[in-house]
């Protein structure tokens, strides 16, 4: 590496070792702090990024030839200005404006004053191996309700929580009117705001000039005292006086969105989770130990994400999973009736059981084919879901 950095260069300052799995691990760090790039003992080196911006054309050619000669072609990804948007996570967070493409040059180009944090894209998740693409897995569940003729069900894999590294059990068919609905972010926003505000009761209360203690008498005579004219010592312009236009009493911010908008919000949230690869279907919630570490290991091994929302049907959930998630802050279990847009947006990953999928499809599809409200749904009808 050309030594244009102060202090020891990378290769001199680090001792590398091969770990058991075949990766490169930093065994020790020697020398000045400026050359270390923040690497510590025990860090596994997965790749290296070389920025060609400050190098001359000869240096760039030398490096590329080095890669070519040693047969590293396939492991090297060359980034051009147009590809910048797809691999922003590999670059430094702070860049000079000229080095990024302008916002008018192409469709994928990012604006020049955009600052992107380095942990925005979870690279480990992008690199997790996809399940086998052969269709030998059995379809464990077909859709109960009739799928429209012009649409076909969406599919996803069924997994288990029994062992950390078990393979997929099969496929499951998901109804397109619940899990493949066109994404309307405005409806999601509306439903999220409603969920936050309809329960809100603001108890801020201030006293008006008539409620503040005192102030019934005229402080001094109208004329002749040389002072400004006043009628009461509790008027709003006085110190200690009442507030003229302050908050008045407990205020309720209750309002209801139409039932179908709220249902559509749930469907859109489920569809977006599936589309973004954050939805996982599991056969049951039986885990071998009530140890929370087992769940965290499983989540990290499978590269699911940071926070997980687990949904099951019924009042009695398996004890092991309840105990395991009790102490965990980012992994939560809820019954299927408690599923809501805010929780789905708050947690990165959504895990549904097969029964939960059936329950949700049943309940959410009923709203597409029901009559309008004749009397409240709490009273009996013949075929409520």
């Amino acid at each position, binding site marked *: 590496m050309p030594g244009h950095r102060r202090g020891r260069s990378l290769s001199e300052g680090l001792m590398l070792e091969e770990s058991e799995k075949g990766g490169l691990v930093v065994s020790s760090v020697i020398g000045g702090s400026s050359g270390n790039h923040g690497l510590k003992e025990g860090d596994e080196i997965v790749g290296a990024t070389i920025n060609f911006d400050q190098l001359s054309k000869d240096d760039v050619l030398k490096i590329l030839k080095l890669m070519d000669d040693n047969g590293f072609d396939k492991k090297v990804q060359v980034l051009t200005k147009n590809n910048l948007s797809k691999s922003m996570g590999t670059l430094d967070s702070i860049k000079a404006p000229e080095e990024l493409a302008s916002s008018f040059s192409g469709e994928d180009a990012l604006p020049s004053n955009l600052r992107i944090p380095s942990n925005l894209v979870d690279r480990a998740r992008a690199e997790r191996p996809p399940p086998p693409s052969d269709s030998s897995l059995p379809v464990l569940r077909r859709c109960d309700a009739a799928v*429209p*003729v*012009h649409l076909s069900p969406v599919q996803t894999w069924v997994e288990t929580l029994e062992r950390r590294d078990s393979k997929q059990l099969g496929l499951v068919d998901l109804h397109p009117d619940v899990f493949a609905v*066109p994404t*309307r972010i*405005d409806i999601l926003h509306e439903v999220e705001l409603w969920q936050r505000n309809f329960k809100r009761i603001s108890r801020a209360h201030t006293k008006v000039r008539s409620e503040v203690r005192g102030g019934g008498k005229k402080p001094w005579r109208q004329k002749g005292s040389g002072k400004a004219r006043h009628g009461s010592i509790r008027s709003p312009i006085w110190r200690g006086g009442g507030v003229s236009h302050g908050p008045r009493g407990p205020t309720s911010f209750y309002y209801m969105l139409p039932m179908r908008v709220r249902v559509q919000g749930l469907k859109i949230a489920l569809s977006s989770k599936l589309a973004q690869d954050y939805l996982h279907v599991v056969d049951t919630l039986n885990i071998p130990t009530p140890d929370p570490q087992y769940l965290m290991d499983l989540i990290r091994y499978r590269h699911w994400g940071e926070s997980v929302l687990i949904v099951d049907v019924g009042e009695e959930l398996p004890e092991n999973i309840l105990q395991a998630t009790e102490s965990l802050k980012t992994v939560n279990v809820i019954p299927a009736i408690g599923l809501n847009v805010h929780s789905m947006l708050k947690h990165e990953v959504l895990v549904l059981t097969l029964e939960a999928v059936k329950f949700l499809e049943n309940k959410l599809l*009923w709203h*597409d*084919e*029901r*009559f309008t409200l*004749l009397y409240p*749904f709490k009273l*009996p*009808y*013949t*075929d*409520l879901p």
Partner: protein
Amino acid sequence: MSLSFIHRSAMLCRGFRASLNLYDHTTRIPNTTIWLRTLCSSVGEANTRILQSTEEYKFVERLIPPSRVPIPPKHDGPSPSGWTPPSEVPPALPYMIRRSRMHNVPVYTDLTHGSRKTTLVRKVEGDIWALEKDVKEYLQQLTGKDLPTQVNEVTMTLRVKGHFDTELKKWLVEKGF
């Protein structure tokens, strides 16, 4: 229902007798006992012999309405009222227009500001611009005028100036939607 009525009347009777005992201390004559022959005593005897029967519930249950819109019976072609079912095979077009929950074609007219007539086509899926082109062509043939249209890609609806609901409904049904 009947059981609860008897129960309620038994409660009333008990309350009635209790109230008599509470407020009537001074006026009670010791040797002559006055028994009040009201409904209470006869119902009190019947209370022990009451039987529950659920056979009459069916008269109420058959009145409870369903909550789902029923699927219409099979028709080949238009029914006597003029309603046409959608075709079995969806037409091979880049767009699709679903039926409403009452199985009708989702074309609606609107009148705003007292004189502004528009026609709205809802529930469009797929390429809405291709539908807009076809609608403009069809209405050009019909009226000879190039009508202004508005495509809303977010809600997937199409608005046309003027009232053309019957024509558009017939046209869509002919296409097989």
